[in-house]
C-alpha cells in the first residue's frame, strides 16, 4: 500500500484509478486510510461479494487472503491479472505502469 501511495501520481498520469477492495469493515478502512493518508478509493467488502466474484473460483483465498491485482482498461476489459502466491507476491509498480502505458497506447490506436 505504501508503494502504491508513493507512485499514485504515476498511476494518475496513466489515466488510472486505483481501487482497493478488502474484507474489513468501513470503520477499519477509514482508520487505515487516515493513518496512512491514502489517496485511493477504498471499498470495504465485509460480505466478500466482490472478493468472491473475482477470486473465489481460482482459490486465491484458500491459502488465506493473498494479494491480487487486476488491470481493467477503459473499455472495461481485463488486461492483466496477478494472483499472489504469498503475501509479498505483489508485482512492482513499474511493471504495472508499463502495462498501463501499453494499454493506453492500444486504446489510442483504436484497438
Amino acid at each position, binding site marked *: *500500500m505504501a508503494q*502504491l501511495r508513493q507512485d499514485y501520481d504515476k*498511476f494518475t498520469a*496513466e*489515466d*488510472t*484509478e*486505483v*481501487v*482497493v*477492495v*478488502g*474484507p*474489513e469493515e*468501513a*470503520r*477499519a*478502512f*477509514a482508520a*487505515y*486510510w487516515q493513518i496512512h493518508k491514502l489517496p*485511493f*478509493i*477504498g*471499498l*470495504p*467488502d465485509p460480505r466478500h*461479494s*466482490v*472478493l468472491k*466474484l*473475482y*477470486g473465489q*473460483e*481460482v*482459490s*486465491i483465498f484458500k491459502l*488465506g*487472503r*493473498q*494479494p*491480487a*491485482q*487486476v*488491470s*481493467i*482498461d*477503459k*473499455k*472495461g*476489459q*481485463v*488486461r*492483466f*491479472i496477478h494472483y*499472489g502466491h504469498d*503475501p509479498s507476491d505483489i508485482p512492482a509498480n513499474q511493471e*504495472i505502469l508499463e502495462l*498501463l502505458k501499453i*494499454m493506453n497506447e492500444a486504446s489510442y490506436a483504436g484497438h
Partner: protein
Amino acid sequence: MSNRVEINHPAPDFTLTDFKGNEVRLSDFQGKRNVLLVFNRGFF
C-alpha cells in the same frame, strides 16, 4: 474452476459503497479511466 475473470474479457461489474459512504460502480469508469483493482489481503 470458473473463468469469470479472464484476460481480454469484460471485467465483472460490481457496486460497493466506499468507506465514506459513496456508491462506486466499476462500470462508471468505463470510457473514462483505467482501473487498477487491488485486492488487499487485510490490513492487520
